[in-house]
């Protein structure tokens, strides 16, 4: 039996150590540095997976200081470190010509560490610190596209995230002033009015970090789309989700929630769903001239911007799940809505990362990020058609795929308010439309330049996309089979995971 401290802190020590090694070796012996980063991340993934399975199968949980691994935090940390590992492997190829790889690699590893430890922390001060580490490293990593616009996007990312940090810090000060504790669970001990004020600060702060409308529109599309593909993947599929997960945990530990807060959450959720997805569609058809929120002086039809807008709408789903649970926090609702939110996070994390990995290959093949100059990728990379379609259907909540659970609980569930059901149906349809249009413009239209050959693309870039598509298929089959068959195992899994979100003492 491995000790809790060992399980929790070994990944931190391993990845931090490999970040130091990369700083020294990355430019001198890049292959060796890459090998060390990949192996430490794989080892950390193995350890966290072991801890997660122990929690799931034997009901164990591991504690060390203010960190906890249980079914919920274990699942999230496994997802985040898996995405981190794949993004790192992808970077070996995507960033192979980067001159400051000695800076890029340690920053990337620190960014991954920050996200994993956000979800494991049960104390607001640790959550705050790890978020700040994520903001600082993420801000620098965005500029690695080396465009003027990427510098502007990084400035905007830092400005908005510092504002979010200030709001969270204010909430922490109020909480500590009243209860002398910064534990997430201690929010319950606050007097009624002060609790409302504290939660308002936390909600606003984490909504900015999670990219919800209206704040998300200001920083998320520029920052995500200007970053190099591996960083965009981590920002979209991991950082935004970890912010949403923290909100989920703060609220699910509460005994009583004010109706005003539930109203704010559901409004933010529905607005994010609709605005995000329509902006994605506008970007896919007409480009940044009409979708706005672009930092460059040149108008483009950016494929990465489509995914960035789509991320805003996907976070909306999570907020709606949370608000619906809070409106009647019964045991059944916890399983349906909190479990649904976590399944949606996994679906979105994997599908968005998959789309982005394929997009990176398409960019390298067609020598452009602007869809007006892309095309013909299908001839060079035909496998991309299949993997793109799998992610499209998963994000579009189509039955048979990993996203079906979200459709079932939010759209086909008669207990959900009708306006939410309509918004979800519109969002799912529009998501499919925007992805298919982007796919058509990138893969099927005539090439606008001499395309690069697949042999020019690094092998490290060709592995993560198909691997994630395969994983999505497996999860889709398992979820759909479990939902139809009312599998006891799936029910227990979701029950353990939802209990894990709530128990953070």
């Amino acid at each position, binding site marked *: 039996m491995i000790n809790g401290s060992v399980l929790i802190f070994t990944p931190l020590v391993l990845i931090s150590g490999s970040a130091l090694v990369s700083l020294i070796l990355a430019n001198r012996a890049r292959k060796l540095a890459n090998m060390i980063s990949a192996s430490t991340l794989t080892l950390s993934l193995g350890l966290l997976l072991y801890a997660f399975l122990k929690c799931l199968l034997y009901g164990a949980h591991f504690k060390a200081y203010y960190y906890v691994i249980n079914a919920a935090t274990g699942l999230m940390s496994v997802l985040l470190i898996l995405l981190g590992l794949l993004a790192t492997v992808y970077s070996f190829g995507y960033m192979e010509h980067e*001159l*400051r790889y000695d*800076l890029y690699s340690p920053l990337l590893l620190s960014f991954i560490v920050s996200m994993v430890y956000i979800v494991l922390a049960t104390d607001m001060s640790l959550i705050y610190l790890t978020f700040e580490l994520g903001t600082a490293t993420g801000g*620098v990593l965005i*500029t*690695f*596209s*080396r*465009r*003027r616009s990427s*510098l*502007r996007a990084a*400035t905007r990312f830092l*400005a908005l995230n*510092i504002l979010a940090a*200030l709001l969270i*810090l*204010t909430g922490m*000060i*109020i909480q500590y*002033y*009243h209860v002398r504790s910064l534990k997430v669970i201690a929010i319950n001990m606050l007097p009624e009015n*002060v609790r409302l004020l504290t939660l308002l600060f936390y909600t606003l702060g984490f909504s900015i970090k999670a990219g919800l409308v209206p704040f998300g529109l200001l920083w998320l599309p520029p920052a995500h789309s200007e970053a190099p593909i591996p960083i965009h993947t981590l920002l979209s599929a991991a950082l935004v989700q970890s912010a949403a997960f923290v909100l989920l945990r703060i609220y699910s530990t509460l005994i009583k929630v004010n109706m005003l807060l539930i109203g704010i959450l559901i409004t933010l959720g529905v607005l994010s769903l609709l605005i995000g997805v329509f902006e994605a569609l506008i970007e896919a058809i007409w480009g940044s001239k009409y979708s706005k929120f672009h930092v*460059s002086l*040149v108008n*483009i039809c*950016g494929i990465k911007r489509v995914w960035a807008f789509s991320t805003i709408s996907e976070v909306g789903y999570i907020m709606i799940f949370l608000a619906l649970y809070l409106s009647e926090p019964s045991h059944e609702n916890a399983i349906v809505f909190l479990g649904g939110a976590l399944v949606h996070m996994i679906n979105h994390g994997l599908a968005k990362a998959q789309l982005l990995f394929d997009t990176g290959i398409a960019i390298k093949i067609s*020598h*452009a*990020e*602007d869809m007006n*100059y892309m095309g013909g990728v299908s001839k060079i990379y035909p496998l991309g058609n299949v993997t793109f379609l799998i992610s499209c259907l998963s994000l579009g909540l189509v039955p048979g795929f990993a996203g079906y659970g979200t459709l079932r609980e939010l759209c086909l569930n008669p207990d959900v308010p009708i306006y939410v059901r309509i918004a979800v149906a519109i969002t799912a349809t529009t998501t499919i439309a925007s992805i298919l249009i982007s796919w058509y413009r990138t893969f099927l239209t005539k090439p*606008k*330049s*001499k395309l690069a050959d697949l042999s020019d693309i690094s092998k490290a870039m060709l592995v993560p996309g198909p691997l994630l598509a395969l994983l999505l298929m497996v999860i889709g089959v398992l979820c759909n089979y479990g939902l139809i068959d009312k599998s006891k195992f799936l029910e227990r899994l979701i029950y353990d995971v939802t209990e894990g979100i709530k128990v953070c003492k």
Partner: protein
Amino acid sequence: MRGREYLWLAIVLMAASMLGGTFSMVLPDELRLPFMWFFIEVTTACLIFTMLYVSLISMMPKEVRLKDIFIGGASRPPYISREELYSTKIPYLGSFDERWELYRDRAVFKE
């Protein structure tokens, strides 16, 4: 870079939070300290931002070729344009990648 708006935003925010901090003195005891802390944080962040904004530009000005100045501006503009004044090179990365400035590889897409 159109960065001047950030500077103005920081200055306005700093003034507003100083004003807010002053008025928070009249709040009841249990709210006074948290609000004052908040305004102190905002003011400090704005101050640091403003200082960095000014110091970065003064430490890393855009290099101007002397030859251009002697021609008296007849060739290329020797002065630092508004865009250049409010932007710096990426200090830790060096130069921008001009090839991808238009979101496509200029070496492949010749205008």
